[in-house]
C-alpha cells in the first residue's frame, strides 16, 4: 500500500487549489453536521432534564377500582348497564413489599413511596386548592432533587413542617416560619410550620405542591400507613416504557412511564431527531457527490499519468486504490477541519450565545463524524476509481 499512499498524496498535493476547495466543501458539510447534532442533542437533553427534573420516570399506582359482577348460577344471558366507579383515594396494598421488590430490580435507580391527595391551603381569608404530597425526604430527594430547587429556608420535612411552592407562598403571603393551615376532606386539618420554599420552574407545581412528612400526610388524607404512588427513576430513561410494563406485570399495579405522560414531548423529540438525521444524511450525500465529481475530473486530468503508471507495471487494482485513497484522505482531511470548526461553533454558542442551555459535545460525535466522512469519501471515490482502473493504457498514454 505504500506506493498507493505515496502517489495518492502526491496527486492531491499537486492539484492544490482543487484539493483545497473540496476539503473546504467537506469541512463545511461536516461542521454543519457536528454543530446541528450537538445543538439538537443539547436541546433535547435540556428539555428532557427539565421535564424529568420535576417528575418521576415511572409512577406506580394502585389499580382502578372496578365493579365485580357475580354471575348467577346456570349461565343465564346477562345484560348489565353500569357506570364506572368513582375512584376514591386508596392505598397500594402492602406497598412496603412492592418498594422492597422495586429496590432490588436491576436498572432501577431510586424508589420513593408518596402519599398524595387534595386539600385546601388556608391563611386568613385566602383559600387555595393544593396537592398534598407526603414524602420520605431521603428517598424523594433521589427522584426530584428538592434541595436544588429550594429558594428559601431549609429542606426539613419533620412532623409539623412543610415545604411549599414559591407561587403559593406569594399568593398566601407566606414567609419562612409562617404557619399554613391545610384542610382536607372529612374535616381533617393540620397547621404546619413553613420551613422551606421551592421553585420547580413549572408554574402549576409551584402553585399547588405542598410537601409534608409521610405520616402527617397519611393522617391528613385519612390513609393511615398507606401510600398512593410509588415514584421510580431508572438508569435508561428511554427504556421507561419497557420498565413500566415489566413493573406492572411484576406487581399487578398500574405503572405509567414519563414517555406515556409526555407523549407530545416525546413525539416532538423524535421528529426533531429524525430531521437532524435527515439533514445529516443529505449533507453527507452532497459531500459525497462533491468528492465524486472532483475525483472524476481528476481521473480525466490524469488520464495520461494513469496510462504511464499502467505501462510501468502498475496493475489495475493499484490504480483503483490510488483513487480510493484520495477519496478517503479528502474525507478525513475535510472532516478534521470541519469537526474543529463545528466544535468552534459549539464553543461560540456556549460562550457568547443566548445562554438558554449548554451544548455538550458527545465524545463519540467528532471521531464518529470523521469516520463517517472518511468512509463517505472512499465510497464516493468508488466510481471514479473504477473508471481510472479500467482505462486502456494504450489510449490513456496517447491522451492529450
Amino acid at each position, binding site marked *: *500500500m*505504500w*506506493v498507493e499512499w*505515496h502517489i495518492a498524496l*502526491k*496527486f492531491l*498535493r*499537486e492539484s492544490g487549489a482543487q484539493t483545497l476547495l473540496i476539503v473546504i466543501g467537506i469541512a463545511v458539510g461536516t461542521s454543519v453536521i457536528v454543530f446541528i447534532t450537538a445543538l439538537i442533542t443539547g436541546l433535547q437533553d435540556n428539555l428532557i432534564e427539565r421535564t424529568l427534573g420535576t417528575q418521576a420516570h415511572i409512577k406506580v399506582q394502585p389499580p382502578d377500582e372496578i365493579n365485580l359482577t357475580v354471575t348467577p348460577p346456570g349461565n343465564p344471558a346477562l345484560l348489565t348497564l353500569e357506570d364506572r366507579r368513582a375512584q376514591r383515594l386508596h392505598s397500594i396494598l402492602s406497598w412496603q413489599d412492592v418498594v422492597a421488590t422495586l429496590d432490588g430490580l436491576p436498572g432501577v435507580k431510586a424508589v420513593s413511596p408518596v402519599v398524595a391527595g387534595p386539600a385546601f391551603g388556608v391563611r386568613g381569608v385566602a383559600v387555595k386548592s393544593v396537592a398534598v404530597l407526603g414524602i420520605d425526604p431521603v428517598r424523594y430527594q433521589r427522584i426530584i432533587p428538592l434541595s436544588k430547587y429550594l429558594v428559601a429556608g431549609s429542606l426539613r420535612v419533620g412532623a409539623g413542617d412543610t415545604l411549599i411552592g414559591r407561587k403559593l407562598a406569594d399568593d398566601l403571603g407566606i414567609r419562612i416560619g409562617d404557619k399554613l393551615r391545610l384542610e382536607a376532606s372529612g374535616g381533617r386539618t393540620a397547621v404546619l410550620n413553613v420551613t422551606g420554599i421551592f421553585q420547580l420552574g413549572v408554574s402549576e407545581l409551584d402553585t399547588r405542591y405542598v410537601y409534608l412528612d409521610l405520616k402527617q400526610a397519611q393522617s391528613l388524607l385519612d390513609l393511615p400507613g398507606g401510600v398512593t404512588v410509588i415514584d421510580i427513576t431508572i438508569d435508561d430513561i428511554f427504556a421507561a416504557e419497557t420498565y413500566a410494563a415489566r413493573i406492572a406485570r411484576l406487581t399487578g399495579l398500574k405503572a405509567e412511564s414519563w414517555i406515556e405522560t409526555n407523549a407530545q414531548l416525546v413525539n416532538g423529540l423524535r421528529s426533531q431527531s429524525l430531521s437532524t438525521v435527515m439533514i445529516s444524511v443529505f449533507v453527507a450525500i452532497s459531500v459525497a457527490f462533491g468528492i465524486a465529481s472532483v475525483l472524476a475530473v481528476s481521473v480525466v486530468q490524469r488520464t*495520461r*499519468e494513469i*496510462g*504511464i*503508471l*499502467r*505501462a*510501468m*507495471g*502498475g*496493475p*489495475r487494482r*493499484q490504480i483503483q486504490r490510488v483513487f480510493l485513497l484520495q477519496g478517503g484522505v479528502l474525507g478525513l482531511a475535510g472532516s478534521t477541519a470541519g469537526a474543529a470548526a463545528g466544535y468552534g461553533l459549539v464553543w461560540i454558542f456556549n460562550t457568547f450565545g443566548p445562554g438558554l442551555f449548554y451544548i455538550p459535545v458527545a465524545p463519540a460525535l467528532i471521531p464518529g463524524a470523521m469516520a463517517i466522512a472518511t468512509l463517505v469519501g472512499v465510497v464516493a471515490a468508488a466510481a471514479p476509481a473504477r473508471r481510472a482502473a479500467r482505462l*486502456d*493504457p*494504450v489510449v490513456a*498514454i496517447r491522451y492529450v
Partner: protein
Amino acid sequence: MSEPATPDTEVLRLVGLRKSYGVGTPVETEVLHGTDLILAQRDFAALIGPSGSGKSTLLNLLGLLDTPTDGEIYLLGQPTREMDDDARTALRGSTIGFVFQFHHLLPAFTALENVLLPRMLTHGRPRPDDIALASRLLADVGLAEFTDRKPSNLSGGQQQRVAIARALMTRPRLLLADEPTGNLDTVTAASVFALFRRINRDYGCAVLVVTHDPRLSGTCDRTIELVDGRIVSDTRHSPDAPLAAA
C-alpha cells in the same frame, strides 16, 4: 534476470501477428497483416515506416500494452496471448522498458522519484539500493545534478533522459522507444541515440526504436521497415559513423 543471457538469446518472437480495430463492426480494419519478427538480446534495431503503417500498433502489441487479434507474442520464450491483464502487467513491468515520444514523466514527482516509479509500482517502498541504482542511472544519462528537480524544471532532452533512466530501472531485457526524439533538436536527438547504443552495449538490453529520421535509424545495427502493416525489409548493417554526442 536469472537465466544466463548471451547476445544471441531470443528476447522477442512474433508469429503471424495480426491486429484489427473495430472487430465486429462494419468499419473493421486490419492494421497488421501477419507479422513475423525475432529480436535478439544484442539487437539495436530501428523500426521505420511512413505514418499509418502500423508502427505504433506493433510497438504497443510487443510492449504488451495491447493484445493481438491473432498470432502470438513470445516474450523471453513465454507465450503471452492467453495471459490475463495482471500477468501481462507483471511481465511488462519486469522485462520491458518504455520510452515515449513525449517523455511522459509524472509532473508531481522529482526526477529521482520518476526513475524509481517502476520499482515502486511492483515492489512498494524503495530500498536504499533501489535509490542507489536510480541515482546511478540518472548519473549514467548525465543528470547526476538534477535528481531532485521536477520535470517542469528540466529541458526536453533532460526529461527524455530521465524517461530513459526510468525505463532502465527494472533492468529490462527489452527497451521500446516510440519516436523518442520526435520533439528534440537534432543534436539532442543524436545524443539520445548514442545513449541507446550505450545501453544496448553496457546493459545487454535489446533496443527497438521507432523513428522517422533516416539519419538516426542509420546509427542502428538493424533496420526494420514497416509499410501498410507488413514488414517489407529487415536489414542488418554495421552502423554508420556514429553521430557526435552532445
